[in-house]
């Protein structure tokens, strides 16, 4: 029966306004949530368990503040919750994050890992494929559907459409929304999550080769041209051709 890990990340709510103070984003006032695509990863992991048995462990990397989202995952239905952290870490780069997470995944004895296609903070989408490479596993990213039974078959976008792809052996699978409806925590789950213990594990991370210099507000856009009335669409079409050269 599969030993399933789902990666979750604590990020600011996507409706949050991001404020910059002194060359760094100021997240002191934002509401923190599980990164939205990770919810689809949790749902897919739970569907996998329902089809084939096994256990689902939610894993995150972060300080103690991240325990809240692990408990949120527990309330939705995962079995175990694990956080990897070392107090000496600050601003790990992608190599450090992937190294630490892949050690934790190995130590958990996982056979399949689900994660969101990107996290709502960086939008990078590097963690899933990077971990797969470090573990020597297959990876499929941005899936919109998964089915189980004698292996995993996923639907993933390809040029001009999508493909159904079967995955055999260990794999990291990153999840898009697709047509998936995610389950919400029920009362029993919430009660269990309150009592749940987070296992904290440590790992080694290499020295970063990428360091943050500054975080700034997006560049302000110069004021555009504004027209009244539908007939002005004629003029806008002309400007798109003659001024912007995009038509």
């Amino acid at each position: 029966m599969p030993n399933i890990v789902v990666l979750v990340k604590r990020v600011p709510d996507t409706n949050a306004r991001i404020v910059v103070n002194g060359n760094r984003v100021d997240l002191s006032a934002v509401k923190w949530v599980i990164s939205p695509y990770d919810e689809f990863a949790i749902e897919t992991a739970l569907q996998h368990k329902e089809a084939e048995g096994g256990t689902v462990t939610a894993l995150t990397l972060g300080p103690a503040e991240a325990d809240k989202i692990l408990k949120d995952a527990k309330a939705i239905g995962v079995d175990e919750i694990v956080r990897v952290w070392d107090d000496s870490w600050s601003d790990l780069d992608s190599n450090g994050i992937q190294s630490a997470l892949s050690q934790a995944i190995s130590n958990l004895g996982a056979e399949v890992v689900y994660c969101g296609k990107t996290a709502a903070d960086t939008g990078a989408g590097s963690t899933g494929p990077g971990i797969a490479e470090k573990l020597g596993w297959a990876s499929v990213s941005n899936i919109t559907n998964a089915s189980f039974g004698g292996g995993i078959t996923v639907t993933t976008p390809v040029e001009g459409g999508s493909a159904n792809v079967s995955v055999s052996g260990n794999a990291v699978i990153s999840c898009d929304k697709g047509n998936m409806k995610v389950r919400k925590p029920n009362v029993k789950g919430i009660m269990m999550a309150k009592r749940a213990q987070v296992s904290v594990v440590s790992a080694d991370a290499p020295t970063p080769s990428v360091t943050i210099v500054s975080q700034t507000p997006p560049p302000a856009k110069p004021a555009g041209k504004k027209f009244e009335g539908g007939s002005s669409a004629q003029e806008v079409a002309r400007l798109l051709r003659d001024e912007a050269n995009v038509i």
Partner: protein
Amino acid sequence: MSESVIIAETNKGSIASVTAEMVSAAIALGTTPTVVVPCTDASIADSAGFEGVSKTIAVKGDCFTNYDASSWAAAIDAAAPAGIIIAAASPQSKDLAARIAARRGISVVQDVVAIDGMNLTSPIYSGKAMQTVAISGNVAISVRANIFQPAGATAANVSVVDQSGDVATAVQEIIARASTRLDVSEANIIISGGRGMGSPDNFSHLEKIADTIGAAVGASRAAVDTWDEIPHSMQVGQTGKTVNPNLYIAVGISGAIQHLAGMRSSKYIVAVNKDADAPIFAHADYGIVATWEEALPVLESAFSSMMA
């Protein structure tokens, strides 16, 4: 001068235009680029010659028939020299860049939109802020399209490397999109509708314009959440797709923060909205204060006569 490796972006079996832009990114980093073309037919590498590039390597292998992250990373890693890896910031190439970086034990910086020496800038929080990082040593980066000036084309000096890779996934079936229209993540022009379109049936007016100018049709989250007929695959925004086409036309979209996050880096933005105070207008290069019923027929006929 240090080295870099550009992973050519291919599209329908030919070299995509963003590849020439990656050459400028390589030069901005002060590196000498080698272009690597993953392919099943090495002849496509003949059009991967650019000013400033002295070497093009066609990495030819059966594993490149369909995208399989692990075999692509293994085959490209084996054929490419050491150096800074540069890929396009398409969903597939970001994935590939991350795998190659991990394979080489280096870090990856995605969605680069500006390069200043060894400082790279990318959007974070889907463009609600920008982050500049300093890199030391070799890293992998992906660069957004439509940002860097394309390098001029020249004859390619191609060497062919036959490379196999163990394919870890098996494609069972390819399902072509029902429509021939582009996906928002592939398009250079996008026309998107919001809840202001009134009903999903009215998206046919956007489709008509899209077909005239070769655009993809997108939607706001409000539209996707309200109407089952509008699939999530069309959703542009922080919880949908992040896009940066040459032209983004927003129709009946007020400009919620999470929608703006997904499209604000588009080169030109046109907004059509009946509410003159809609936040979308603050981000539009060209704003039309009108209902879509008034504006779209005019826009459609103007585009039609331009395309004729």
